[in-house]
């Protein structure tokens, strides 16, 4: 220890005294050193004579009636630092809070984009999609490492700030608490996983190499061009599937369940049930026949047996935007169906020449058109999209929609037939609709109802609406 070290240490130990008091005590010791040379002593001799700065401080502080015990001594709170700190806190929290909100969102966003890329690449062939999968995964691993480091830096800064607060508000005393705060670390948590360093280094290096290689590869793979996803380049394939294996009888129930499919029902003079699938992206469909109740179900087969296609189906389905899916069902005209149930989410539905017991059409956003058909019970359920029915005969008909127009023309029916229309907005036009009990329930939109045969008498007519005009003849 040198003289200067001794003085500066003493100065530090006496920090509980005010500056003037401290300087006076220190000046005594400085005198001691100054006079030493004249007494024939070296600096080291003096240092040996003197007590340690810590002991001196304890004695001096005792004389001043200050208990120098480090854990309990009172700290003078410096008002200026407290106010400065509060200003600092306000400043920091003004950006810290948005950052705290944004960071998790960014993390979630990165995950979605990671998944979203799969969705886009599922339009590509297997090989480029695999390259994209591998490259993106490597990129994501590196990204997570960067996140870990960023979190660690953020944590360290936060710990410093917290310790600083403790120091200002409670004094430089709570070492155990400080150590506790300092000891928390994301990196240490990560290290607790006990992943060998070799594996981590190999993972990072391998990921960087993979990113490099896949980036290069992306330039050379033609299919990678995003333009190829655009509709200009989409070619349409016609695939005709003829179903002959099923016994097509009067008892048949025909059911479709699709997400995206334009469905057209027609009849054919042929004696075979024919399914024609037209598409530009092979989302496929599958046909199953339940022998027990003679039900033929046609549905999406997007959950493919190929593992990689399933991976690409994690994301949102962009089928609606870019793909064409059309299914034509041609049924022999000689048979009457037990039930026809057409269900999809989007894609228009058109039925012509249906003859059978039950007719159920269920869709979310698309138009429904029904022509020249005969049924007993029919229900049409739409959320948005227009409904057009013409030249048909049915005993009961119920139409349920939220928005979109309803247009019925030339509908005939046996006695005691029921028509019920339940709508929220959209116009209703009924012309030559000869059904005995008519019930119309809507909130807004115009209702037009006129029959050419003015002699036709309805059993009941109930119109329940809130706004819009009614014209009737």
């Amino acid at each position: 220890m040198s003289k200067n070290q001794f003085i500066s240490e003493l100065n530090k130990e006496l920090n509980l005294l005010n500056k003037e008091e401290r300087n006076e005590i220190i000046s005594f010791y400085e005198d001691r050193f100054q006079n030493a040379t004249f007494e024939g002593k070296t600096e080291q001799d003096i240092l040996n004579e003197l007590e340690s700065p810590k002991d001196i401080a304890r004695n001096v502080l005792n004389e001043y009636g200050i208990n120098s015990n480090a854990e309990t001594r009172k700290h003078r709170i410096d008002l200026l630092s407290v106010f400065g700190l509060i200003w600092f806190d306000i400043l920091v929290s003004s950006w810290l809070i948005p950052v705290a909100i944004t960071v998790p969102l960014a993390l979630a966003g990165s995950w979605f984009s990671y998944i979203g890329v799969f969705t886009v690449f599922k339009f590509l062939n297997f090989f480029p999609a695999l390259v994209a999968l591998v490259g993106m995964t490597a990129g994501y691993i590196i990204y997570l490492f960067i996140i870990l480091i960023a979190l660690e830096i953020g944590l360290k800064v936060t710990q410093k700030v917290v310790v600083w607060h403790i120091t200002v508000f409670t004094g430089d005393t709570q070492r155990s608490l400080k150590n506790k705060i300092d000891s928390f670390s994301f990196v240490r948590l990560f290290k607790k996983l006990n992943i060998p360093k070799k594996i981590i280094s190999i993972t990072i290096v391998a990921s960087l190499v993979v990113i490099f290689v896949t980036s290069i590869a992306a330039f050379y793979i033609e299919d990678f061009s995003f333009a190829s996803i655009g509709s200009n380049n989409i070619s349409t394939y016609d695939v005709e599937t003829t179903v002959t294996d099923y016994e097509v009888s009067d008892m048949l129930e025909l059911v479709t369940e699709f997400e995206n499919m334009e469905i057209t029902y027609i009849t054919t003079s042929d004696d075979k049930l024919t399914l024609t699938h037209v598409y530009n992206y092979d989302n496929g469909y599958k046909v199953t026949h339940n022998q027990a109740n003679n039900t033929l179900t046609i549905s999406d087969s997007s959950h493919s047996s190929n593992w990689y296609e399933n991976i690409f189906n994690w994301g949102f389905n962009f089928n609606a935007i870019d793909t064409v899916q059309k299914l034509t069902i041609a049924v022999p005209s000689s048979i009457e169906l037990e039930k026809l149930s057409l269900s999809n989410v989007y894609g228009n539905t058109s039925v012509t020449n249906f003859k059978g017991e039950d007719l159920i059409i269920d869709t979310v956003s698309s138009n429904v058109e029904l022509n020249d058909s005969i049924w007993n019970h029919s229900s049409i359920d739409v959320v948005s999209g227009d409904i057009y029915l013409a030249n048909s005969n049915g005993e009961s008909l119920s139409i349920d929609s939220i928005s979109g127009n309803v247009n019925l023309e030339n509908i005939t029916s046996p006695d005691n037939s029921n028509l019920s229309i339940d709508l929220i907005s959209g116009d209703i036009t009924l012309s030559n609709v000869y059904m005995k009990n008519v019930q119309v329930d809507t909130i807004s939109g115009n209702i037009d109802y006129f029959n050419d045969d003015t002699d036709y008498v309805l059993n009941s007519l109930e119109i329940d609406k809130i706004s819009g005009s009614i014209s009737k003849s």
Partner: protein
Amino acid sequence: MSTQLKKGVLELCVLNMLDNQDSYGYDIYQEVNAKMIISESTIYPILRKLVKEDLCTTYLKESTEGPPRKYFRTTELGNKKLEVLKKNWVEFYQTVNSMIGSESNE
């Protein structure tokens, strides 16, 4: 002699010493230390306290062997205080003696 006892009378001893002869910090310490062992660091706050209470003043005095030193000298107030402290001490001393029944003193 216990440090607690020493501390109580240190002010009196130092003041008395300075009343006889002006002196500087380290010299005062050495003189006291020759008669009763104290630590150097207890003497300086006492000197400071004496100055602060106007019982002492300081002045710089050229030294034949080095830089000028800060000398302590008692003030008039210091002399009066010394008398009071001495009187107190004698009273205290007699009281304690009578209480512990010392035979060596009467």
